[in-house]
């Protein structure tokens, strides 16, 4: 009989679920060692349970998957397709991509999304900043500088996703934000004292008055490590290049901190999310004050730091410029774009006024006599 040349496996090297195959990975969540098959099963089932227990979808829903071509959204598209077929969710899944207009980055990642469209047999809609705002990210950066690139991009993307979804007649966008991202955001909001955002940052489904489109994160409890492993073992086609513009420095630092913590205590990501979910903020203090003008008694909200909020809410909840839903008179995207337009015009105005100013000054000087 031919000798078996296979390496002997120790029992401790076996999968802790099926006890039959060799374990290939250790789950950061509970340190369980699993084989590929059991890992796929556990990974997909956990996401299914998250979807079901949070009632994320109803049969017949049309869902847009915010797809960047990166690992998270690629795995999200793949897993949602699998689960939709396995558990008969009855969902119509569509890929929705944003083209920010970053040459050498987004054009390459969109090529990945186009391949995903064929691989997963889903319709694809691409919405571009250039079409929506008449500004591409490359133009914005050349005008406003590289340091604020993430601020612009973030605000514009949020609205672009909403508008893309509306164009498709869809009122629910799912994104690939994972547990690491959520923990990172909780940490960042704590470090910045951003209490308003802290409360909403752990919500799996955001459904605000500000937006006609719901957002949800089915990967809220899914570790980044497992997403990367899933993509690797399933040989999913994803794009992985960092954006050419500087990443948000503060988020980067929070991420480093979190990764360092995770290497010592892998469960800390879940623990931070848990803490975030269970924080309840003290209600804001209200104080009676007398109005300066007509000596009327009014109630004013006072924040913990002593600052007050002035009641300047407009009657309508639509942006005066673009007609988009907004809690302010002018929506954030319009405010940013307005600033950019001013900047664009200023360049020529500045030089003109300098010439005008100089000529006027010399004329005035000529007219002077002692």
């Amino acid at each position: 009989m031919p000798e078996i040349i296979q390496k002997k496996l120790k029992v401790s090297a076996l999968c802790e679920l099926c006890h039959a195959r060799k374990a290939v990975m250790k789950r950061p969540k509970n340190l369980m060692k699993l084989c590929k098959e059991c890992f796929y099963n556990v990974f997909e089932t956990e996401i299914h349970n998250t979807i079901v227990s949070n009632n994320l979808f109803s049969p017949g829903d049309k869902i847009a998957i915010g797809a960047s071509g990166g690992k998270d959204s690629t795995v999200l598209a793949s897993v949602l397709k699998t689960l939709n077929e396995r558990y008969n969710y009855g969902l119509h899944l569509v890929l929705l991509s944003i083209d920010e207009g970053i040459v050498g980055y987004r054009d390459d990642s969109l090529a990945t999304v186009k391949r995903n469209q064929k691989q997963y047999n889903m319709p694809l809609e691409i919405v571009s900043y250039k079409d929506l705002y008449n500004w591409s990210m490359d133009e914005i950066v050349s005008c406003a500088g590289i340091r604020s690139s993430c601020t612009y991009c973030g605000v514009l993307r949020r609205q672009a996703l909403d508008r893309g979804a509306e164009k498709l007649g869809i009122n629910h966008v799912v994104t690939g934000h994972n547990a690491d991202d959520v923990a990172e955001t909780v940490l960042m909001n704590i470090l910045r004292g951003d209490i308003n955002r802290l409360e909403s940052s752990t919500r799996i489904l955001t459904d605000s008055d500000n937006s006609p489109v719901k957002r949800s994160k089915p990967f809220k409890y899914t570790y980044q490590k497992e997403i990367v492993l899933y993509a690797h073992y399933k040989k999913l086609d994803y794009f992985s290049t960092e954006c050419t513009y500087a990443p948000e420095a503060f988020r980067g630092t929070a991420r480093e901190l979190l990764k360092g913590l995770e290497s010592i205590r892998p469960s800390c990501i879940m623990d931070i999310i848990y803490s975030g979910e269970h924080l309840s903020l003290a209600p804001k203090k209200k104080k009676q004050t007398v109005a300066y003008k007509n000596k009327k008694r009014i109630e004013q909200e006072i924040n913990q730091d002593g600052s007050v909020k002035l009641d300047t809410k407009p009657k309508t909840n639509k942006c005066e410029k673009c007609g988009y839903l907004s809690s302010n008179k002018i929506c954030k995207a319009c405010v940013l774009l307005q600033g950019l337009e001013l900047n664009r015009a200023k360049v020529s105005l500045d030089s003109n006024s300098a010439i005008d100013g100089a000529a006027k000054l010399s004329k005035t000087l000529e007219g002077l006599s002692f």
Partner: protein
Amino acid sequence: MAIKIKIEFLGGLDIISNSIREHKVTVPFEEGEATMKDLINWITKNIISDPKDIPVFIENETVRPGILVLINDTDWELEGMEDYVIEQGDVFTFTSTLHGG
């Protein structure tokens, strides 16, 4: 003696190795003696093209948190991490998990 192995840089990590994702290399180690620790050291000297990129790969003398390490497609945490003894034909995969999704 030397050991033939394959080293892969995935998930965008190929930026530290001249955009080459797959390296088939022969490392000047004695089989049965060299560990993962020796290999990591060898990589920083022989594969990373720009010394400035070493901190992208190494932190506190080991692979930086956020880089997933697989030895023959198995999580290195199950293979003894730095103490793993390198064998002929091994495949080492380093994948960055930090890039946007």
